[in-house]
């Protein structure tokens, strides 16, 4: 496995209209990692992928994928890349098997490939529809075919544009299990998704909105960034007094205390792994009994909302400042 970064983007910009495109994207993806780009529709995820596959040329900035400018990829480099487009695009007059073979040929997989095709069919549960015409296949079957066609040549670097869109939860989990398997084997994956929760499966997550990267971090790093630290839930045997909680909020490593209900609070802490002893000391000093205490992992939907809201607040604040200055 190469130790060089698979993707390096520096102030990458592609502008379609005033507000649409990708702006000043900085990104570095090490080989063997899974990086997710999450964001709402129109946030620039697909544009980013298209820039990295050479389908679009940037207006400014620089980009290197597998050590090359994507607009000047050599055929050998292309053969190392797999790309799953957002829409399933194949030939409706061919069967799923024929389409899969076509894709395999396109990437130079030798003609003796029956076992490889069967492997993909089994992996993606395409046994029944494989000899059906594509025009007669369901949306899910087309999506699975699209993924099989992306994987069949064993690429080192995969760009998967919303691979799980429209897929049932069980198959979605199966997809992610396989993505993790590919990552363990050394493949690098860039996955775009609108399912924010899927960010938890990735090594690195970029949150995009309006063509800009709001945050780029590990899943845990993003959670901390969204809430100002780790979240830790504490449940008391009896309702604590307000003074007790004021004292708790002043303890080392705790930045915020929020009521959840009479018996429980949520803490924002610097490090959830080191807060337990502080809590135990504080409870014994105050004569309080802790019924339960544990780190809370907020869903990524919440993390995403927090991050986007924070950015919007900042933008509103800056607009207000400008207005005042004017």
């Amino acid at each position, binding site marked *: 496995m190469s130790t060089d970064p698979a993707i390096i983007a520096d102030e990458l910009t592609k502008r379609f209209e005033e507000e649409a495109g990708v702006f000043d994207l900085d990104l570095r993806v090490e080989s063997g990692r899974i990086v997710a780009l999450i964001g709402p529709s129109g946030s620039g995820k697909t544009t980013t992928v298209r820039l990295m596959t050479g389908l679009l040329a940037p207006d*400014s900035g*620089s980009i290197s994928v597998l050590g090359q400018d994507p*607009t000047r990829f050599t055929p050998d480099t292309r053969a190392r890349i797999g790309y799953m*487009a957002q829409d399933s695009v194949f030939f409706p007059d061919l069967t799923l098997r024929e389409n899969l073979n076509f*894709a395999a040929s396109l990437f*130079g997989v030798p003609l003796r490939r029956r076992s490889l095709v069967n492997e993909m069919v089994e992996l993606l549960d395409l046994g029944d529809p494989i000899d059906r015409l594509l025009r007669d296949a369901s949306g899910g079957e087309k999506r699975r075919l699209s993924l099989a066609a992306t994987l069949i040549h064993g690429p080192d670097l995969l760009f998967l544009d919303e691979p799980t869109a429209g897929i049932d939860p069980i198959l979605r989990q199966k997809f992610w299990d396989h993505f993790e398997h590919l990552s363990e084997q050394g493949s690098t994956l860039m996955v775009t998704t609108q399912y924010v929760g899927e960010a938890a499966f990735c090594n690195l997550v970029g949150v995009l909105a309006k063509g800009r990267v709001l945050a780029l971090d590990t899943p845990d790093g993003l959670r901390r960034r969204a809430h100002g630290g780790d979240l830790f839930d504490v449940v008391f045997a009896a309702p604590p007094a307000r003074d007790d909680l004021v004292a708790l909020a002043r303890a080392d490593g705790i930045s915020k205390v929020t009521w959840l209900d009479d018996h429980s609070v949520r803490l924002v802490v610097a490090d959830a792994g080191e807060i337990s002893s502080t809590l135990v000391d504080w409870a014994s000093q105050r004569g309080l009994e802790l019924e339960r205490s544990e780190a809370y992992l907020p869903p990524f939907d919440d993390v995403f909302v927090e991050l986007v809201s924070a950015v919007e607040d900042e933008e509103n604040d800056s607009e207000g400042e400008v207005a005042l200055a004017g």
Partner: protein
Amino acid sequence: MRSLTRSLAFLRKELVSVWRQPRLIATLVLGPFLILFLFGLGYQELPEPFQTVVVAEQDGSAIGVDAAELDEAFGEGIDLVEVTDDLDSAQQSLVSGEVDLVLVAPEDGLDALERGEQATFSIFHAEIDPVMTGSIDLLARLSVGEINQEVLTGIVEQVRTELSQTDGPLAEALEDVPDIDPALLVSPFTVETSPVTEQPPSQAAYYAPGVLILLVQHLALTFASLSLVRERQLGMTEMFRVSPLTVREAMSGKYLSFLVLGMALASGLALTMPLLGIEVQGPLWSFALTVALVIFASLGLGFALSGLANTDSQAVQYSMVVLLVSIFFTGFVLPLDQLTVPVRWVSYLVPGTYGIAGLQDVIFRGQPAPPRLMGALLMYGLVMVALAWLAVRKDVEPASAPAVKVS
């Protein structure tokens, strides 16, 4: 090897796609055969005789030739319906479409002759087809020629009879003149035409090479154009541009697949030719080479035109325009010689022009297609390859990189 695999992928894909459309295949193979068959069955080399009314003097004898003789003089091209002296009624019949021609005999034919003037037959018709108008004109001249011969023959006979009944030096001199048929005297020369080909084609057979070439050209052009446009519409080009596929691989696969299809179709059509009474008199290799080059050139034209089309219907419209141009400018209907030189250049922009001329030589003259025609067709095809390359390139190659400003 990988390059070959990619080209073969296109070959297989195109062939399977067409194979999956049995009705299309049936139409492609049976359709042209039926067209040729029906055309051969129903086409009359000579038009129907013109139904004609002759307007003449009351006794039906305009210039001393009675109606029966007049009908015989007209020959097969004219059916004499009636001899009348009512010009208005005859013209009414013409306008209502009951008859095709109204021939008005000169009232004073012999008087005019005695005055040293030509007597004029007037012919009225309601034809609007320029070809048929030309036919009427030609037929009228031939018929008047026949009438003139009949008149002259009668005069010669009459003079000879009258002279033979007199005494004198003229009658004696006449006895020394060989007894030559008066009809031969007034028409001493005739003409025969003999084609150098062993089996001159019938009118229907003559169009067979044109039908075959135009059909093959049209299908190759349409298939090629639609193939690229559909890939664009499906969004397949995105996959092509990310893959290691090169323009050369995509083009070679597509050219090969449609060449195979086109040749299969042409072979099917060629096999039906004997059923229509047409035999290929020249070498079969030249037949195959001509068809192959037409397909090659037409595919290039189709790929190039696909660059101008955004949708299926646009691609079909372009190919229909080429077909229309082909009908008028390739020599299929009208001889190329009848086109003036600047306009004739349009003919050489269509592959069918070379193909029809070449195939006519192979089928009817028993000769290989002229090398200059085949060379021109090959050159045409190569130029089209260059244009097609430009059209395919934008589907296969990645985004052209502008000068990226590295900040």
